[in-house]
Every structure is written in C-alpha cells, then in structure tokens.
C-alpha cells in the first residue's frame, strides 16, 4: 500500500515548532526544538526516557506553555494555552496513562472528555460508528473496570477520533500492547494517515518506528539530535542518534547455575482487589547464579506475583513459595528477609523508601534485622555508616546520608534502594521494574549490579515490562499473562512471535524461527 506522502511542497506544514524551549527548575527539558509535520504524515518522535519527548507533547497539546519559541498551525502562528484550545484547533492526544474513570461506562468516559456535551443516544451511535470504521470494537455501555489495557486504549482513540482531529498525538502507545494488538493499531493509524490526518508518534521502540513512520525526529537531552527517514535507517543508526554513541552493553558470561533457591510450586492466589488479577498455578524455579526475567504487559498479575513472593500477601499453601528449600508461603516479609530474600519494589518513593525520612533511616527500613536494630532500640550510628557506604559504593548523588529520600532524583534513589538491598547480602534477589523512569547512566549501573550479583551466585528474579532490558540481562525468560506463567526458556530460544503469543496467554514451546534481536 502506498504510504501517505507529505503534501505538495508549497502548502504549509500542518504543525511547525520553531525554537521551542522549556525549563523545569535546573533542567532544560526542551532546548530550541525545531519540528515540521506535514498533513497525512506519520512522524516519529524518538528518544530515551528523559529526552524531552513528553514535555514537547505537553506543549503541543496545551498542557504547558513554552518559555520561548513559537508554534505554527497550518501556517499561522498560534498560542496553545489549554487542551481545550488544542482540541478546537484539531489536535488530539492519546496519553500513555489513560485519562479514564474505572467506575464509569465507556460512553460516560467519552462524554466527559468531549468538549460539547452530546445527548446520550446520539453519542452511543457515534461511538459505534467510529469504532467500526477504524476497526476498534468497543461497547459503549460497558463499565470500564474489567476491560483490558488494549480495549481501554481503543476507548481513548475513539474518543479522539470523535472530534475529527487533523493531528493525532500518540504517546508510547505500544508499551501496553501485545504484538498482535500492535498490528491492529498500526492498521488504524495508516488508515487515518491516508485520510490526511497527521500523526505524531512518540516512542523509543526502533522496530516499530522503522515499520510505521514516514519521518523521525530524534531527541537527546532536550535537543533535536537528528532527523531521519526510518525506513532508510537501521536500528543501530537510529540508536546512535538516540544515545549519541555506542552503548556499553552488559556482558553476560555463561555460567553454571547452582541449586534452586526460589521455588514457586502451584502458586494460586485469588485477588482480593476487585480490580486485580488472580494468580493460578504458577510454577518457577530460580537457581543461584542465574537471572530469570518475567516479561508481560502491565496488569497481568505482576503486582500480585511480586506481593506473593515478597510476603506482603500470604499464600494458602506454605509450600507454594520456597526460599532456599524452606517453606515460606505463609511467612511474613520479615521472616522471608531472614531466609535470605531481598526485594526492590516497583515504587521508589512511598514504598521502597519513605519520602520524608533520611537515607540513614531508610536503611533501617529493611535493614532492621541486619544489625541496625538491637534489643528493640535503633542503632543510629550503624545506620548512618551503612547509608554512607551504600552511597559511596553505588555513586548515589545526594547531600549525604542525612538527605531526605525525596530530595534524590529517580535514578539516584533507585541506585540507593538497589544498593541497600544488595548490601544486605541476599541469597535471592527480587526486583520489579528495575530501571523504570531511570536515566541511562543509572540504569547501566543497576543492570551491571544485578549481573554482578548473579555472578556471585545469587538467584535473581527480575520482573519488567521492558523486553529489551530483559533480553540484555536475563539467562532465562518467562512470560506472565492473565495470572498464569509460561515456562522459563533461555533468552536465545524466544522469538518475537512466541513472546507476543505468550503475552496473550497462548503458551507454547519456542518454534525454530530466528532469534529475537535485543533492540540495540
């Protein structure tokens, strides 16, 4: 099929950004950005986490205003002061985190997002019309809770399309989709582009951009570091523009794995949260000296699995979780720590660390049994020494061990938490989303620390939504879908197809196709 090429040169671009800059405190999020999007063009905005993509889109959609620079819409200068105004111009945005209400129906959700209230009956009819037209089936009367992530995204897209936009912004749309759902999305986007709608596609997934997009603008550290025609580039060349050089890869030496240190046997856990996922019959063994990864789309039971292993939720059967051979399914988190389990949770502030406590006090949070509490009394000097040592070893940038946790940047706090757990000498290490929202440098330190741990004989279990990350550090990978776990196969045995299928719940042995390329 022909791609929708840019309109004839003499017409003004649909959207033009000239010299856009935006500063947040000491960080220059956007630095003199220049961008042009033609009608009917699918334009990728490519960049790592923290490159400035989200800020730029917030400016285009009117959520914030730039400190300097100008925006042109269809050739005329505009000041976009609010999302409502952006919508009036014809700009629509599908956010990464959906703006949806659980307890309301699809139609009610859409009604809230529309600027002109529409009578109920008319709205339901319009929703059905659009959803059929673009291959996005949804039921207007369905209450949102219980709908899958893919379905929710469809609601968001239909909402946008009802306003007949001329520019559609998609922010990391595929991070929550299975590969099959991605196909459907791409079809929809191509159809829209062929009708003349411009699309701004924000992503860091190189394969997808090369497949879908006409033009790519690459951002690095707030600046435009380059522009490219994705089809003419390779993943490697795009990556270079994104990262500015060769990325030091983590090296995973093959290693003999030791005895099984974490064993999940027939783990079944009905969810107490009506919005949660129940786990059923999960089996997994993690040996000392290996890193096992669990991949999966968010919302498929990861949180519940992590809680079952860490002890925050107790299992019915004590044998469902065994740590170093000892039944721990009904043991408290404290007891599991004594058995050698250490755990880095997904949320840093408020869970992994207490915002308003110092790093020294935060060491006592999980280090109580390791000498930081004796006879019920706090050992403040030991805690301070511990925190200082952690800061030094993991290069945590902060104002010392008495600095409050909330004063650290995301990457540095994550380094501290990972470092704390590592220094508490685990036999089994459980990590959830190790590098989410973390800058590239810190992510590298953390991944290397996990590999070092593995090399020292610790059993490491990583749960992550970033496939590329898992493939770069894991010996074996399993997929979780709908509360069930696939077999954990060596990374090299997985292919894009089998991973994608597994994510939808179809677990089958690896086929013989080419091995999955790990992104960069």
């Amino acid at each position, binding site marked *: 099929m022909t791609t929708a090429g840019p309109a004839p040169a003499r017409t003004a671009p649909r959207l033009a950004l000239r010299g856009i800059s935006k500063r947040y405190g000491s960080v220059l999020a956007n630095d003199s950005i220049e961008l042009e999007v033609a009608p009917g063009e699918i334009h990728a905005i490519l960049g790592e986490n923290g490159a400035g993509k989200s800020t730029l889109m917030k400016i285009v959609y009117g959520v914030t205003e730039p400190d300097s620079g100008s925006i042109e819409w269809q050739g005329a200068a505009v000041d976009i002061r609010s999302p409502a105004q952006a919508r009036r111009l014809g700009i629509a945005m599908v956010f990464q985190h959906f703006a*949806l209400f659980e307890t309301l129906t699809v139609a009610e959700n859409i009604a809230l997002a529309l600027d002109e209230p529409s009578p109920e009956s008319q709205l339901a009819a319009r929703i059905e019309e659009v959803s059929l037209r673009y291959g996005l089936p949804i039921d207007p009367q369905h209450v949102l809770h219980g709908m899958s992530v893919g379905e929710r995204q469809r609601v968001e897209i239909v909402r946008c399309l009802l306003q007949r936009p001329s520019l559609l912004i998609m922010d990391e749309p595929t991070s929550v989709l299975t590969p099959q759902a991605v196909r459907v999305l791409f079809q929809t986007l191509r159809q829209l582009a062929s009708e003349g709608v411009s699309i701004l596609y924000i992503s860091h997934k190189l394969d997808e951009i090369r497949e879908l997009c006409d033009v790519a603008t690459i951002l690095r550290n707030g600046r435009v570091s380059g522009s490219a025609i994705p089809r003419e580039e390779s993943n490697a060349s795009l990556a270079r523009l994104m990262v500015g050089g060769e990325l030091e890869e983590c090296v995973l030496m093959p290693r003999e794995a030791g005895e099984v240190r974490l064993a999940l046997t027939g783990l079944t856990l009905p969810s107490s949260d009506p919005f949660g996922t129940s786990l059923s019959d999960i089996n997994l063994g993690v040996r000392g000296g290996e890193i096992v990864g669990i991949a999966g789309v968010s919302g498929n039971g990861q949180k519940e699995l992590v809680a079952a292993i860490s002890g925050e939720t107790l299992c019915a059967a004590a044998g469902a979780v065994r740590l170093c051979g000892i039944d721990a399914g009904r043991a408290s988190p404290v007891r599991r720590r004594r058995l050698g389990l250490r755990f880095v949770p997904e949320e840093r502030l408020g869970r992994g660390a207490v915002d308003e406590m110092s790093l020294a006090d935060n060491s006592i949070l999980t280090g109580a049994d390791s000498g930081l509490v004796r006879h019920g009394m706090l050992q403040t000097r030991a805690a301070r020494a511990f925190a200082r040592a952690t800061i030094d070893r993991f290069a945590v940038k902060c104002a010392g061990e008495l600095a409050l946790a909330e004063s650290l940047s995301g990457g540095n706090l994550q380094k501290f938490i990972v470092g704390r757990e590592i220094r508490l000498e685990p036999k089994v290490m459980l990590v959830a989303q190790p590098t989410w929202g973390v800058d590239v440098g810190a992510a590298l330190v953390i991944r290397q620390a996990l590999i070092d741990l593995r090399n020292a004989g610790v059993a490491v279990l990583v749960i992550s939504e970033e496939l590329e990350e898992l493939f770069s550090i894991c010996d074996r990978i399993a997929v979780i879908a709908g509360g069930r776990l696939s077999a954990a196969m060596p990374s090299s045995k997985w292919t894009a197809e089998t991973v994608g299928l597994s994510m939808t719940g179809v677990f089958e042995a690896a086929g013989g196709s080419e091995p999955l390329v790990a992104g960069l």
Partner: protein
Amino acid sequence: MSAGTGTAIVVSAVAAATPLVYAALGELVAERAGVLNLGVEGMMLVGAIGGFAVGLSTGSLWLAFLAAALAGALVSLLFAFLTLTLQTNQVATGLALTLFGVGLSAFVGRSFVGLPIARVPQLHIPLLADLPFFGPLLFQYDLPEYLSIALCAAIAWMLARSRIGLRLRAVGESPETAHELGHPVMRIRYLAVLFGGAMSGIAGAYLSTALTPMWVEGMSAGRGWIALALVVFGTWKPWRALGGAYLFGVVTVLQLYAQSLGIEVPSEFLSMLPYGVTIAVLVVICRNPKTILLNRPASLGRSFHAGS
C-alpha cells in the same frame, strides 16, 4: 401493640429520621466529589441555632430554614477554603470544624436557651389525610419531611443521569484525571461541600424547629456523626442512605415507646441504642473490603494538587 401506637412510632421515627436524611444526603454529595467533611455535627448545630434564632425573631419558618442553610453553607465554606485551597488535612480540619460549630452555636445561642417556638406545622393533605389508618400514617407529615424524600429522588437522578452528576462522580473518582480533561475540579468540589453544608444546616433547623422545638447547647447529640455513618452504610447511594436513616429513626424513638411496648430497661441503655447500632451497622458494611473498594469514591479524603 395497637395500631395507634404503631402509627405513632412510625410518625415519630420519620420525624427523628428527617434531620439524618438531610445531613446524610448533603454529606453524600460532598463525598461523591471526594471530600470527607467530618464537621457535619458542627454545621448541624450552627444551622439549628441559626434557624431557631431567625425563626423566632421573624416568625417565618421559611426564613428560618433559609438562614439555617446559609449558616451551614458559610461554615462549610471555611472548611472548603482550608481543605481545598490550602489543602489542609481533611480529617483534622473536619474535627476542628465540629469543635468550632459546637462552640460557636453555644456562644450565639446563649440568649435563646429556654425560649419557646412554634413547631413546624404538619400538613394535612386534603382527602388523603382522612383515610382510615393510611391517613395518619402517610399523609400528615410536615413539609420538610416530604421534601426530604423529594430531595433524595432528585439527588439520585442527578448523580446517575445528569451531566453535573457525571462530572461530580468523575471528580470523586479521580480529580487528577478530571483536571486533565479540563473539568473545574475545585469549583465542583467547592459547590459539593457548600451543598453539604446547607443540607446539614437545614437538618439542624429541623431539629430546633420541629423535632424538639427549642434551643439547647449541643442538641444534635451526635446525629451529625450518625449521618456520616449513614453515608457509609448506604454505600454512597442516596436511597440506601435514606433507608438507613429511617432504620435509625425507629431505633431512636424506641426508648420513648419502651414502656408501652413493655420493655423494662433503664432509659440510659435505650439511649445508647442508636450509637451501638451505628457501630454494628458500620462493622457489617466494612467487613468485606470489596464492598468498600467498589463503592467508595476513590479519591475520598485525598487532597488534590492541581500543580503536581
């Protein structure tokens, strides 16, 4: 128990329930918008003295109720300013509001203690009120009592079917998302709180002009707290809250009819019943965490930071 006693119990139960209905419905609207206002007791008392004072001085009960609504709304405005604009802790501020309302009403009411006032007249609906048995049972209530039921219906309709109700529910579930979508979260919450305050004020006025036509310091005796519990008991649904209020009305008046019903218990223990039943009812509702999770407005009690 004779039919006459039975009817009398029902009629007094309805009267006892009516202030609970107004206060609970008002608080329900505020809570559906995500704001927990523990100051209902204080607002009720302020409404009680406001209504009593104006009613006595002007002789007009319409003005009395209007004044009560205004008084309740003004006091709740203070609460709204502190918790919504200054983002103070909702629990602490609500408690402060109760204490303030208790003290302020006592202060303002010091010269009204012991003065008599004419009770809100009971209506006599033509024809229907003369029916045997059903007449006295259904058709001889006063206007505020009838209006309380109409209010319940109106609020139920508003929440389920109107655009205002939709926005309110959205704000109650996730003010951040509603703000993202461009809805005026602050304005909606302010209005919800003011409505709750006005309703609590009216509830108080009913206390001092109908239920026990007089002013006494602290005359609400914990009804504000019972109204708060009723919102939970009714899982934030108007008709259920109404039902709960009537249940309480019966429990409350039981002690007055204890003798004729042959109950031989010291009066203090009968007076304890409403409070004990409140506890029991809350336990039953809260036992199953799913009930709360599915029905409680998700953002209840949380401050909303527009800038974060």
